[in-house]
């Protein structure tokens, strides 16, 4: 062994600079999900926490099944928003699932709640619908499916906190007018169809005024008795 030592040392001497040069030219992008989803950061924040733009939602901590359904719907064009449709067009189910699981696992801080600009009456109407619904008009409370803490439920029901009023009313409007749809039976289309424009504004105002939840996690699958059947929340 010993007699090879000088030779080995000599080889190592020559090998080192070559290795160093190679590692410099072959520096690789980080092999992490965070690096892979940097494309999402300008609109959704580096950790999916949301940005100052009121129309782009927080992704972090929403149940993976919900995020996955949205990613698939954007990829296949059922949920329309051209920048999202474009980015996801040629990605596989497996990869979209990993992206969904990644954002579902993150718990960045919530943004400070926006001081409400709406009247006390509007906020009170919003609170009523969120917590108790409007039995007279057949509207179930949001909390029945999205949880008393509004953190959502696995696998397919999203949390409702950390979102801006503009985004929430935009989505409820989309459900009402049929531009946003989900798997049948499409329970959100039914619920949103029962809301008036005033109701939508009130719900959006109330939800966006809520402080960050003490426990930012979603309810386990099947833990909430849902008042109606939803295609995206299979029993």
């Amino acid at each position, binding site marked *: 062994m010993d007699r090879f030592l000088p030779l080995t040392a000599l080889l190592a001497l020559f090998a080192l600079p070559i290795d160093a040069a190679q590692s410099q030219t072959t520096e690789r992008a980080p092999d992490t999900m965070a*690096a892979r989803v940097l*494309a999402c950061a300008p609109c959704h924040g580096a950790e999916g926490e949301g940005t100052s733009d009121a129309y782009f939602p927080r992704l972090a901590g929403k149940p993976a099944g919900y995020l996955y359904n949205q990613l698939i719907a954007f990829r296949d064009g059922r949920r329309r928003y051209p*920048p999202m449709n474009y980015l996801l067009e*040629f990605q596989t189910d497996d990869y979209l699932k990993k992206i969904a699981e990644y954002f579902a696992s993150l718990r960045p801080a919530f943004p400070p709640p926006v001081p409400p600009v709406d009247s006390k009456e509007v906020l009170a109407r919003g609170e009523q619908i969120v917590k108790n619904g409007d039995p007279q008009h057949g509207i179930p409370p949001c909390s029945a499916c999205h949880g008393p803490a509004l953190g959502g439920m696995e696998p397919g029901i999203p949390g409702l906190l950390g979102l801006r009023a503009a985004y929430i009313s935009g989505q409820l409007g989309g459900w009402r007018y049929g531009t946003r749809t989900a798997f049948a039976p499409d329970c959100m289309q039914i619920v949103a169809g029962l809301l008036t424009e005033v109701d939508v504004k009130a719900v959006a105002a109330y939800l966006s005024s809520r402080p960050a939840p003490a426990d930012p996690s979603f309810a386990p699958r099947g833990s909430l008795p849902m008042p109606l059947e939803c295609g995206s929340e299979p029993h």
Partner: protein
Amino acid sequence: MSRTSTGLLVGLVLALSPATASAQQKAADPAVIAKGEYLARAGDCIACHTAREGKTFAGGLPMKTPFGTLYTSNITPDPQTGIGTWTSDQFYQMMHNGRFPDGGLVYPAMPFASYTQVTREDSDAIYAYLRTVPPVKQLNKPHDLTFPFNNRSLILGWRTLFFREGEFKPDPTKSAEWNRGNYLVEGLGHCGMCHTPINALGGSKQSQAFEGGLIPMQNWYAPSLTSNKETGLGDWTIEEIVDYLRKGVSAKGAVYGPMAEVVYNSLQYLNDDDVRAMAVYLKGLAQGGPPEKASTSLPSAESSLLLSFGKSIYDRDCASCHGATGQGMPPDYPPLAGNQSIQMVSAVNSIRMVLNGGYPPGTSGNPMPHGMPPFAQKLSDDEVAAVVTYIRTAWGNRGEPVSARQANELRAATLN
């Protein structure tokens, strides 16, 4: 029913559709069907003949053209609404000559001008495969073309100008690998549909084959494959071209825009020999030496201001992935220094990548691609122009500066 009349009936059915019956016998050979499935991938049939969230091969995908919207057809074996009653002769007639079984003319959005090169044997294999896919009952949507393009007889004129019928003839002076590559690129691959300039009549100019052009309605520029000044592949290694075509990423650059679709639906499924053959052929197409220094169209004082402004944006928003000197971290973060795609005469693709970002396709060789963020909402037109000008001219790159107006116009480009 008596035995005689049953026999008569069988005889009658056979007599009425002899080719169908014989084709169905052929279709029983799993090797032919498997070959047909592979060739259908090479021809990327699925990309146009399947609508979003639609049933596979049932058609109905709208294709916007400068002449109106065409809707692709149902090519499943449903006898009423698909091609279930077609014979293999009729299928070949469509592929080879662009005519329906009744002799009617096919709009050249169907790339029969390329598919005409496909051999009868390969056409029959694709036919055999298509007979095995689940039949879907879905009527074809009528095309929505503007006058005078809704007159199908105009296709006759187009054919006279741009269509040369003829199966692929191997060049005996070239290797078998080169010939296979030629066959795939020019025939089933129909690469010329985008990479050859399209004239006002929607025809590809054969004299300028593979010289590149702006893809109508999509606002992506399909670069020249013949000029090393664009994406001529003369300076690429075969390995780099193979990676690019099959994985969607390579040490030289990543696929984006409409090419991402081609890799996602077609090229990633091709075997190593075929992709290598395409690479050999494509590399051979490239002519000319390295790019020459571009002459700038902006006054130098203005362009140096633009450059220093562009550098400050680059250092802030781009350098963390693409490197301070544009070296990138290939293959996931493509190099920008020396990247031909950035130095092309047309700046459309560079501007759009900055505005829209993008992901290379998810492929078996690169299942979880890294993505580039869109900067449309972060950067103003002036900033986009400055940073694109910077990457097109820094580190020895020889592209020309771009203006804020060019950046602004592409904000409205169709994304999807």
